[in-house]
C-alpha cells in the first residue's frame, strides 16, 4: 500500500483513459475503499496528489463525478461564465480605441501585408462607430455596444491578445481548447474535471447555444476531448430543451415511475452478486442523477417564471426575434449560475444563419453586419452583467468575454469588410478576481499588432484557471503519451489582470 504513495502508482499513465474506472480508482486509493478518510487527509496535504511532475490529480469518485472537489489553491472565483462572440468581433470598432485610424483613414499604413486571410487588402478605415468615455475609468468604448459599455468600470480589458490562426474553426478550437486541431478538452471540461460542481441536480457544465445553432467548430468548443465523456458540457438553451430529458409522451407518469423503480430493483439485485463493484454502482447513480435532472432542468429553463421587470431588463420582448431568444438565453445563464453550475458557456453567433445574419464575421459591409449582431448582443448582455452584479453573483463568479480573434484596421479590397486579425485583439474579464476598471496590454497605434504586454490565448486561459484556483501547469491528464494541458506547454498567468 505504501508504495502507492510514492512510486510507480503516481506515474503519469495510471490515470489516463480510465479515470472513472473503478479499478484504477481503487488502486489509486490504495486498493481499499475503507481508507477514504486517510486519503482525504493526504489529499488535503497534497501528499497524494502531487506526482513526480507536479501534476494534481483530482480524486474522482465514479459514483459522483460531479461532486465538488478542492482547487489547487484558494480561488478568487468559484464559478465562471464564458460569453463567446463567435465570428471575430472587430476590436477597433468596439473596445480598442485607435485615434490614429481617424487620422489615417483611407491611407495605406506602413508594413501592411498585401494579402490577409481572405485575400488582397484595401486601405485603413476609421472606426465605424463613435467612441465615448465610460464611467469613472473613462474607458473609450464605441456606441456599437452602449449597454455593455456601461459596465466598463467593472471590466478588465486586455488589448494585446494574439491567436495562432486566422481561420474561424481553428480559432474557436484554439480559444476554447488550447489547440487548433479537434479533439482536445475544452476549458469547461478541464474545470469540471478538476472541480466538479456545487449543484448535484444540474449538469456541472452547460453550453447555451446561440438561438441559430452551433458555432463553426460545433461541439469541440465544449467537448471533453480525451477526458471522460462525463465532463463534456450538456448543451441546451432557453428554446431547445435537452434531448431525451422528458418522459416519453406515450408513457404515463405513473408507469414511468414504476419502470424506474423496477430498474432500480433489478440493478440492486444484480449488484448483490458483485459486492463493491463501483462500475455498477456508478451506473445506478447515473440513473438517479438523471431522474433529478428531469426535475431540475425544466425548473431552471422556466424563463417565463421570471417577473416582467426582468424580462424588460433583458429585452425578451423587444427587437428582433434573434435578440429576444438570445435575451432568454442570458436569463438562463443567470439562473444556472445562481444554482451553482460550475461553468456556463454562452454563445452569441453560430454557423447557421437566420434573418440574414449568422455571427460577427464581417468580410463585407461590416457596418451592417456588426450592427445587426450588436442589436442581438448588446442589451441582453448588458442586462445579464447588471443582474449578476445586483444579485451579488459577481462576488464568486468570473465573467469572461471573448472572441476568437480581432479584425483588421484596414478594409479588404472590396472596401466594406474587415478581414481576420489574429495579431492583436481584445477580450475582457469581469467579476470575481478581475482587476476592475483597468486595461492590460496594448495594441499598436492602428490596432494591427500588439505593442505592449503581448499575450497569448494560453496566457488568457492560464489566467482564467488561476482565478478558479487551478494551476494550469498542474492540471493535466495523460493522453496517448503526453500529460496534456489546456495550455499545451505554454502560458503565463497575466497577473496584471488580477485584482
Amino acid at each position, binding site marked *: 500500500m505504501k508504495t502507492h504513495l510514492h512510486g510507480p502508482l503516481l506515474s503519469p499513465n495510471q490515470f489516463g483513459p480510465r479515470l472513472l474506472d473503478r479499478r484504477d480508482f481503487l488502486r489509486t486509493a490504495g486498493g481499499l475503499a475503507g481508507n477514504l478518510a486517510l486519503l482525504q487527509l493526504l489529499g488535503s496535504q497534497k501528499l497524494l496528489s502531487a506526482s513526480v511532475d507536479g501534476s494534481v490529480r483530482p480524486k474522482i469518485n465514479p459514483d459522483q463525478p460531479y461532486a465538488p472537489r478542492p482547487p489547487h489553491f484558494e480561488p478568487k472565483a468559484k464559478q465562471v461564465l464564458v460569453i463567446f462572440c463567435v465570428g471575430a468581433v472587430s476590436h477597433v470598432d468596439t473596445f480598442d480605441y485607435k485615434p490614429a485610424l481617424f487620422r489615417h483613414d483611407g491611407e495605406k499604413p506602413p508594413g501592411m501585408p498585401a494579402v490577409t486571410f481572405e485575400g488582397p487588402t484595401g486601405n485603413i478605415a476609421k472606426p465605424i462607430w463613435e467612441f465615448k468615455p465610460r464611467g469613472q475609468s473613462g474607458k473609450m468604448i464605441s456606441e456599437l455596444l452602449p449597454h455593455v459599455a456601461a459596465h466598463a468600470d467593472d471590466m478588465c480589458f486586455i488589448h494585446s491578445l494574439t491567436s495562432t490562426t486566422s481561420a474561424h474553426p481553428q480559432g474557436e478550437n484554439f480559444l476554447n481548447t488550447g489547440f487548433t486541431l479537434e*479533439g482536445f478538452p475544452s476549458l469547461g471540461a478541464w474545470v469540471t474535471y478538476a472541480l466538479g460542481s456545487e449543484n448535484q441536480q444540474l449538469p456541472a457544465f452547460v453550453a447555451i447555444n446561440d438561438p441559430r445553432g452551433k458555432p463553426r467548430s460545433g461541439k469541440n468548443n465544449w467537448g471533453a476531448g480525451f477526458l*471522460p465523456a462525463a465532463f463534456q458540457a450538456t448543451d441546451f438553451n432557453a428554446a431547445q430543451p435537452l434531448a431525451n430529458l422528458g418522459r*416519453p409522451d406515450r408513457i404515463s407518469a405513473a408507469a414511468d415511475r414504476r419502470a424506474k423503480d423496477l430498474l432500480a430493483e433489478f440493478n440492486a439485485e444484480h449488484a448483490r452478486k458483485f459486492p463493491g463493484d463501483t462500475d455498477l454502482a456508478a451506473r445506478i447513480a447515473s440513473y438517479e442523477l438523471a431522474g433529478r435532472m428531469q426535475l431540475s432542468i425544466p425548473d431552471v429553463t422556466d424563463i417565463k417564471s421570471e417577473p416582467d421587470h426582468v424580462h424588460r431588463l433583458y429585452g425578451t420582448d423587444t427587437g428582433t426575434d434573434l435578440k429576444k431568444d438570445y435575451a432568454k438565453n442570458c436569463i438562463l445563464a443567470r439562473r444556472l449560475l445562481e444554482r451553482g453550475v460550475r461553468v456556463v458557456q454562452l454563445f452569441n453567433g453560430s454557423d*447557421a444563419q437566420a434573418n440574414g445574419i449568422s455571427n460577427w464575421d464581417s468580410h463585407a459591409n461590416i457596418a451592417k453586419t456588426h450592427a445587426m449582431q450588436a442589436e442581438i448582443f448588446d442589451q441582453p448582455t448588458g442586462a445579464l452583467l447588471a443582474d449578476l452584479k445586483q444579485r451579488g453573483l459577481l462576488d464568486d463568479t468570473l465573467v469572461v468575454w471573448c472572441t476568437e480573434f480581432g479584425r483588421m484596421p484596414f478594409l479588404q479590397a472590396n472596401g466594406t469588410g474587415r478581414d481576420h486579425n489574429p495579431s492583436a485583439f481584445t477580450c475582457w474579464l469581469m467579476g470575481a478576481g478581475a482587476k476592475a476598471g483597468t486595461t492590460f496590454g496594448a495594441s499598436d497605434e492602428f490596432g494591427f499588432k500588439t505593442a505592449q504586454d503581448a499575450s497569448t490565448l494560453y496566457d488568457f486561459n492560464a489566467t482564467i484557471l488561476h482565478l478558479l484556483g487551478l494551476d494550469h501547469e498542474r492540471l493535466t491528464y495523460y493522453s496517448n503519451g503526453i500529460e496534456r494541458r489546456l495550455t499545451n506547454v505554454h502560458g503565463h498567468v497575466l497577473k496584471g489582470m488580477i485584482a
Partner: protein
Amino acid sequence: MIPPAVTRSVDFETEVRPIFEASCLECHGPNRQRSDFRIDVKKIVLAGGGSGEPSVVPGKSAESPLIRYVAGLEEDMLMPPDGRGDPLTPEQIGVLRAWIDQGAAWPDHASATEEDPRDWWSLRPLARPAVPVTAPALRHPVDAFLEAKRAEKSLAASPEADRRTLIRRAALTLTGLPPTPEETDAFVRDPFPQAYEKLVDRLLASPRFGERWGQHWLDVVRFAETSGSESNLYRRNAWPYRDYVISAFNRDLPFDRFIHEQIVGDATGVDEATGFLVAGMHVTAATIGREESAIRQARSDRLDETIQSVSTSLLGLTLTCARCHNHKYDPIPQKDYYSFAAVFAGLEYGHRPWRNMPDAAARDRQAAALWSDIEARRAALRAQQPAWTEEWPSHLQTHFAPQTTKAVRVTFPASGPAATVDEFEIYGAATGEKNLALARHGAAARAFRTTEVPTREIGNVIDGRMGGPFAWQSRRLGEQTAAVPWFEIELAEEAVIDRIAISADRETIEETDYIVGARDSTGPRTYKVEVRLADGTWYEVADVALGPPAGNKPPPSANALAALNHLVRDYTAARPQPLFAGFFLPPAPTHLLGRGDPMDRREVIVPNGLSVLGTDLQLASGTPDVVRRRAFALWLTDPQRNPLTPRVLANRLWLHVFGHGIVDTPGDFGKAGQAPSHPELLDWLASEFVASGWSAKSIIRVLVTSAAFRQSSAPNATAALVDSGSRLLWRFPPRRVEAEVLRDATLFVAGTLDSAMGGPSFRIHSNKKRYEGWKVVDNAGPATWRRMIYQERMRGIDDQMFTAFDRPECGQVSPKRTMSTTPLQALNLFNGEFVLAQAEKLAARVKREAGAELSAQIDRLFELVYGRRPAGREVESARSLAAQDGLSELCRVLLNTNEYAFIE
C-alpha cells in the same frame, strides 16, 4: 554585450567542467534534464538536446547558444535562471568563450554517457520466451504465464464460469452480439468435450466477427466519413475503407499484408486500403485562407494526421511529440519525425479513381462501349453543326470546329444570373488530354475588371483547383448588372484547339455528397466563346444558351444532343468512381522544420524509419513515392528490423479480449506509457503472432480459449485487496459494453437487426449547406436498423444517442476508449426513441414466440435479453409491471439494466 574571451589557452577538465558542474549540472545533468538537455554529455552539447540545436558551435563562441544564454542575450533564457544560482562572472564567460573559440576540445573520457536508448523493453529485439513451468502444469501457455505472476502475489485463478455466462461473454467479445437463446441452450447441453472450442470457431467464422473487430481498428485510426473542421464535408466513397477493414478481419488477412496494403495498396490493386493514410481530418482549402504560412501549416497538419495514425496504431509511439523538438521521453529525435513525413511526402488528402471497385472489369467494358458511342455521336454532330455544348454531371463541354489560336475569350451576359467559374479548360485534338489553359502550362488569365472580390480573382480559373469557394464570379455579391463581363486566357503558344470545359463547383459535385443544391451548379448556362485570329480580331466559335439544368436524369430523347448528354452521364457513372483514399504526387523535398514552424525550413531529410532501431531504408530525397512507402511498409512488418509492430498488435488483440492491455497505454510503448504487466507473455504472444503468419484470428483463438478468459468474473474480497483491477487475471474482469454493442444487441434481441453488410452508410443526418453543421434527423427509424459500424460517421458530430457512451468523435486518434458513466447516457437510453421503439418490437417478438401466457412471455424475454430464465423475486416483479403497464415497459426496463449492459 558579451564579455570577451580570455586570451589564454583553456583546458576543459580543469577550467570548463568545474563551471558546468557548479552552475548547470543540477538541472542539466544525470538527475534532471530540463529541456531535455544535459551539460555533461559531449554529444548533447555539441549536437543538440531537446531543441535539436547544438549549444556549442566550436570556433564560434558568439553564436553558440550556450554563451548567449549565460550572457543573458536571449530573452527569458538567462542561465542559470533567476533563483537557480548566480549568473556567471565575466571571467567565467570569458573562459567558456575561449574554450569554444579554441575548438571546444572535450576528451571523450570526460563525457558522461547516456543510457543506451535501445535498452528499453519495447525496443529490444523480439525473442520468444519459454513458457513457464508451473505446478501443476497448465495446458495453456497463456495461463502458464499468468499463473507465474499470480503465484508471486499468492493469487489463484477463479473456477470456470458457467456456460450461460461463457457463451454470452464469448459472443459479445468476438461478434459484438449476444447469443440466441437456442444457441445458449445448445451450448449448455453440448456433451462434446471440445464444445467451447467449437463455439469459438463458429464465432470466429461468423461475418459478425469482422464487424466487431473492424470497429476496434477504425477507432484507432479515427476513421470518419467527413473532413472535419468548419465545412465538415462528406467524403464521397470513404466507406470502402471501412468495408475493407471488416473484410480483412473476416478473411483473417495476414496482418503484415493488411498493413502493407494500407500503406501502399494503390500499387497492389487494393485502392481502398489507403483510406488508412487519410482517415484523420483535413481542413478544406476555403477554410485555410490564402496566406502562404497558413497554406504550409495546413499541409504540415495533414501529414501530421497521417504520421499520427501510423505511429499510434502500428508502432505504439507518440512520434508526433517530435514534430517541434526531440521527443521528451523517448529516443526519437526531431529528425525522425521528418523522416516519416518524407515517407508520405507524395501523399495528398483527396480522391482518386477506385480502380478495383466491384465489377471493375465489367464497368471498364461498359465505359469503353459508351465512349465509342460518344465519339460516334460527336462525329455525327460535327457534320451537322459547328458547335455544341455537352452537359456533363459536374461541368459543361463546348465543342467547336478546330481553330489555330493563341487566346480564348469567354463573354457572359451583363444581366440575369451571375456566372460562377471555378475552372476553365482548353483542349485540342493534337494535344489530347493536356489542358492548355493551366497556368502551370504557361497560360495567363485576365478579366474585364482588375479589382475582384478578394478570394475570387480570375487566376483561380486556371489554377487546376476545382471548387466553388474560390470560383471567379462575373458579378460581385449584390450587384445587379455589370459592364459586359469577360475573361481571356492567353496560351503559352499557338495551338489548334476544338473544345473547352467550364464548371462552377466541380469539386463539390464530384467529391462530396449531401450538400444542398450542389448538383444544380454545373456551370454558367449562357456564354460566348471566341478565339483570337492572327490579325488580332476575335472570332466567335460558340454561342451557348442552355435551358435550366435537367438534373440527374434527363429524359431520353430523340434529339441528338440530348442523347449525347445522356451518354456522357452514363459514361461518368460507369467509369471508376472517385474514392476517398488519398492521391499521390511526385514528392517535393522534405525539410526539417525549426520548432515545427512550416516557414522555418531547415535541412532536407530523407525518408526513413526509426533511427533508434538503426533503420536505414536506403531512400533518397528523390526516391519515387511508391518506392518510399513500400520500403517503409516492409520495415514496419519485419520483426527483425522492427520489434514494435508485433508487440503493439498483440497487445491490441489482448486489450479487446480482456478489456485492458498487457500494456494499458496501447498507443504508447515509450517511457511515458505504462510498463507491461506481463512482459514475457507479451513477447510470447508477439512471437506467436508472427509465427502464425500474422493471423489475428489465431491469436484471438489462443486468448479466448485460455482458462483466464473462461474463468468466472465473481468478485473475491481478498484478491481485490491485492489486485483490484484484476490485471493479474485472478478473475475475468467484467466491463460495460461499448456504444455499438449496446445498439446492435438491442436490435438483435428485438429481432429487427438488418444484417446487410457493407456499402454506403445508412443515414441519420439531413443534407446541409456547405457551411452548416450536420443535423441528426433520424437515429431510430427502420432505415437505421443495421449494425452501427455502417452508420454514417460525421466527425465531431454528436449522434444524439450513443455518442454519450464514450463513442469516439474521431478528432484525435483513440488508442483506447474512455469508459465513463453519465446521466446523459441514462436519459438517452431510458427516454430515447431508439430504445422505446425497440422495446415495442421486442415485446411483439416475445408475444409472437411465446404465445399469450404472460409467464411464458417473461421467460422468453429474459432468455432473449440475458440468456437465462427469471428467478426468485424477479418473476413476480416483472409480472407485476408487465401486467400493469404492458410487456414493452418491461422490455424498456430490461434494456436499461446493468446485467444487459455489462460483459460479465
